[in-house]
């Protein structure tokens, strides 16, 4: 019987090893360990053995059964893994195929520039003020120290709708309106918006463009405060290593008036085609609010002083992104617009 048992064991192990898939292995299991299998038969036949041999034989059968079971499970694990691997293999995809496109849109480059400037000044405690694009001559010119017949009106060729109504030529009338509304109180605002001038559209001129202006009025506002504020702006907008320089200039609504240059962000000041070999790029106009402007809006110019600055988002975008033609901003070619999707931090 022992011989029979060993023979059975080696037969079983042989078949386990020979099984190539789960199904075959399961057949082996049923064949040897099933209720009708030879091992069960052997155990059933134990009764016929003499009593003293039974424990020995019983133990022997159990050893064989355990060994067969263990080997079978080991083999099963291998075959199952093999089966999964085969399935996964058959499920392989071409991961180089394109992903399902996600619709993305983005802001217009001018909005992008304006929003960046807005956020910068908001973080310094400024509010954003807006005003009408169709304006009264009074707010666009007179309240800004540009009475009728003032030669400086020539600097801004104007679209008139009637003698007193026009398309604003700058965002400064928002300052005049805000000052009037605040009735002598301190102010800290920036004013973005569309403006219009009687220019023929070409690569560098547009009859419609945007401006963003700032105005601070308070006690003891000094020209050094203007310089400091503009310096913060230049560094945040164009990079930490930007230097600024002020040059005297003229605007009827400020005195003194300045223009601000920044050191060229492309060449760092050595001279290149962006800065026309000067190392400096003109960015904005600014100045101390003219006392006439303050007085006209009901401010006591002896008590309160202020500064104002104004810049063109078109120019800033053109410089920053290397855009060569201002008309791109108004053509809305999607091949142009969609380039302003990605962040630039």
């Amino acid at each position, binding site marked *: 019987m022992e011989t029979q048992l060993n023979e059975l064991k080696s037969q079983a192990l042989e078949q386990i090893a020979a099984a190539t898939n789960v199904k075959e292995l399961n057949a082996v299991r049923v064949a040897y360990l099933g209720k009708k299998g030879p091992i069960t038969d052997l155990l059933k036949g134990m009764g016929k053995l003499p009593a003293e041999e039974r424990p020995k034989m019983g133990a022997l059968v159990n050893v064989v059964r355990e060994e067969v079971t263990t080997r079978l499970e080991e083999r099963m694990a291998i075959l199952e893994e093999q089966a999964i691997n085969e399935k996964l293999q058959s499920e392989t995809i071409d991961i180089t195929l394109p992903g399902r496109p996600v619709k993305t849109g983005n802001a217009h480059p001018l909005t992008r520039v304006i929003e960046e400037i807005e956020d910068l000044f908001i973080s310094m405690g400024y509010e954003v003020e807006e005003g009408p694009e169709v304006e009264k001559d009074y707010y666009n010119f007179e309240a800004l120290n540009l009475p009728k017949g003032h*030669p400086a009106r020539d600097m801004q060729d104007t679209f008139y709708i009637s003698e007193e109504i026009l398309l604003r030529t700058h965002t400064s009338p928002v300052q005049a309106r805000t000052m009037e509304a605040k009735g002598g109180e301190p102010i800290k605002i920036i004013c973005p918006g569309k403006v219009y001038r009687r220019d023929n559209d070409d690569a560098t001129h547009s009859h419609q463009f945007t401006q963003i202006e700032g105005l601070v009025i308070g006690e003891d506002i000094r020209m050094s405060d203007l310089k400091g504020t503009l310096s913060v702006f230049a560094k945040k907008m164009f990079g930490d290593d930007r230097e600024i320089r002020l040059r005297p200039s003229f605007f009827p609504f400020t005195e003194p008036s300045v223009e601000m240059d920044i050191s060229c962000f492309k060449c760092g000041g050595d001279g290149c085609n962006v800065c026309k070999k000067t190392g400096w790029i003109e960015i904005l106009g600014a100045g101390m609010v003219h006392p006439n402007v303050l007085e006209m809006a009901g401010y006591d110019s002896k008590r309160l002083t202020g500064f104002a600055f104004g810049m063109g988002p078109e120019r800033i975008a053109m410089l920053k992104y290397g855009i060569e033609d201002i008309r791109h901003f108004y053509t809305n*070619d999607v091949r142009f617009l969609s380039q302003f999707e990605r962040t630039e931090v």
Partner: protein
Amino acid sequence: MLVSIKWLKDYVNTQDLAPAELGEKITRAGIEVDAVIDRSEGLSNIVVGYVESCEKHPEADKLSICQVNVGESVDQIICGAPNIAAGQKVIVARPGARLPGGMKIKKAKLRGEVSNGMICSLQELGIEGKLVPKAYAEGIYVLPENAEIGSDVITNFDLDDTVLELDLTPNRADAMSMLGVAYEVAAILEEEVQLPEITYTEAEDEASSMLTLNVDSPEANPLYAAKVIRNIEVKESPMWLQQRLMAAGVRPHNNVVDITNYVLMEYGQPLHAFDYDLLETGNITVRHAKTDEMITTLDGNERKLSLNNLVITNGEKPVALAGVMGGENSEVSENTTTVVIESAYFQSASIRSTSKEHGLRSDASSRYEKGVDPNRVIPAAERAAQLLAELAGGEVLKGTVLFDELKREEKVVTVSPDFINSRLGMKIRFEDMLDILNRLQFKTEAINNQLIISVPTRRQDIQIEEDVVEEIARLYGYDEIPSTLPETATTPGGLSPYQLKRRVVRHYLEGVGLLQATTYSLTAEKSATHFALKPTELTKLLMPMSEERSTLRQSLLPHLLESVTYNTARRMDSVALYETGSVFLKGQDELLNEEEHLAIAMTGLWVDNSWQGEKKAVDFFVLKGIIEGLASKLGVEIEFERGEMDGLHPGRTAYLMLDGRRIGVIGQLHPTEQKARDLKTTIVMELSLAELFAEATDALLYTQVPRYPSITRDVALVLSKIVEAGSIEKLIRSAGGKLLKDVRVFDLYEGDNLEAGKKSVAFSLTYFDPEKTLTDEEVTAVHENVVAALVESGAELRS
């Protein structure tokens, strides 16, 4: 303003600074130097030649063969200029010479004849054609007879000069003259100004014996000075004068006109020369024009005058438009022997309005408009008399014929050093301030720690304390100003609710895949009200630049659609754009009612993932979904109500309704409109952001996440095609009561298996009770109510 540095050196020591360096100093002190122009750039080996003989080229009609003495030799040169002649002194570019634009002169053969160089026109030396004297405009330039043969043209005729181009701001009218620039440079370089020395011999006869003067309009013309110069010879000006004028951007004519222009450039004081004999009456009367009076100005235009125009007359008829341009009838010509030189002070407002009315600007009017220096009117007349005596052989009659009621007081500005320093945020020392004011030649007294400044009349831009602050700061140096930040209390800053909502809208639309566009506000008259939600009367410009940009838009869509067409015409078939911007509506006020709108236009594919079999063209419901998403983002309920609008598909248009108000429109473009715009299926919408944002949003409060499950039941209905799903949904909601949480259309079928005129719509109903788990029986009871209500309304249940 073009400033020749050679000329400038007559009045101020420029310390031999390199032109670029001088330009930089001027710029940093406040007058922007736009360009530094080297007049001799690219010029070399150019000499005076004498044309000994000149014969026609046998092979070419237009060419001449010249034998030219260039000092060291007599060379044959072929010349194509029509005005070449033997006996002329000419400009010769010798072989090896360089001309502007990199041109190099070589020995050459022209139609078989050797040419050893080139006889040059002024244009070939880099001078603009419009500045070349008319006599030489079409040919070579002829040098004066006394020019030394073989000598260097560049140095002998002042071409070795650099011109600074100043970009003057309107306040610095003082720098519209060489003397004005000299004062500025003197202040920058701490030098003195050397004024021209005026000396000449007067004739015994009094000018007033020949000329009488009446000024009838003393307000407009408070000062009029006239000099009479007789026995002059009108001829070409000497080379130095011609060169200086050309350097200043003025075309030389003859010595009389050139002298008036020279003094204009030197003093900034406009002068005018009349032919005394052509005045006929020996009288000058300044008055306003009469109705229907006419004058032909020097530019050849006949002009009808108006009562506002100040004119110079001979007592009878106008001979000049005062301060703007002379008249043809008294123009100086080769035959002139006696001239009257006018130097006057005209009020800027008068000149400005006349110049504007006639659309005529001149060197004179542009200076009068900004205000000339009252103290230079008479010296300028004297200077012209001197030059006419020197350069035209004239005899200056004794005295000046003068009308003078002009006040010439110096403006006094009092300012304290503390004021200056507090405005600048600086600590400039008192002595430094005084030094700067002295450099500017502002007479200054210091009394009780106040600076009492008498501003010279040439600087009419200095009126108030702040102007002095600027003068001090710009000459002290803006680089010296420290950088500080305002010390006022910190303020919160931020966006208004409206501005915040606008950003929410923008970021949402960009998130769902739209590109932001920006178009023009000005449009053609015919497009102005197209697609307008609330069309009003048109708003047109008084003087548009073109019809295309003549009228303010009342809708964003026409231009936005133009942008879509622009793209599809360039084979970008799928375009989805949005724009926010103002439309301009006529209102009660004289100002317009400007309303900010949002517009969207989309065409082509919305989903394009073809390799996975997903492709979806834009349709009404794509855009409707975007608007619904936007509404939920803003916490408002927008309803869609069937609508109509010109240019939109009549069956595929809806109004956007908010609280019963029509705030916008959505629709598919009408096929005719699509065709006209060369577009395929295009869906558009426009709404008023002002109305969309009118109400404040409710506070956001959390509702509990459901703790009990919901139960879903479906119902499929057969409906007449004209019944709208929306009305059935309303019916279901009202019948479903509070347990019905959600209703959703999940299937729509129109086809063969249905009776004609019918459609099948299937709804999915979700029941939910926040308090407990619903039982099947409870749901069935409610659902049966809903079904009963539907059947009662005429809907047929689909089995």
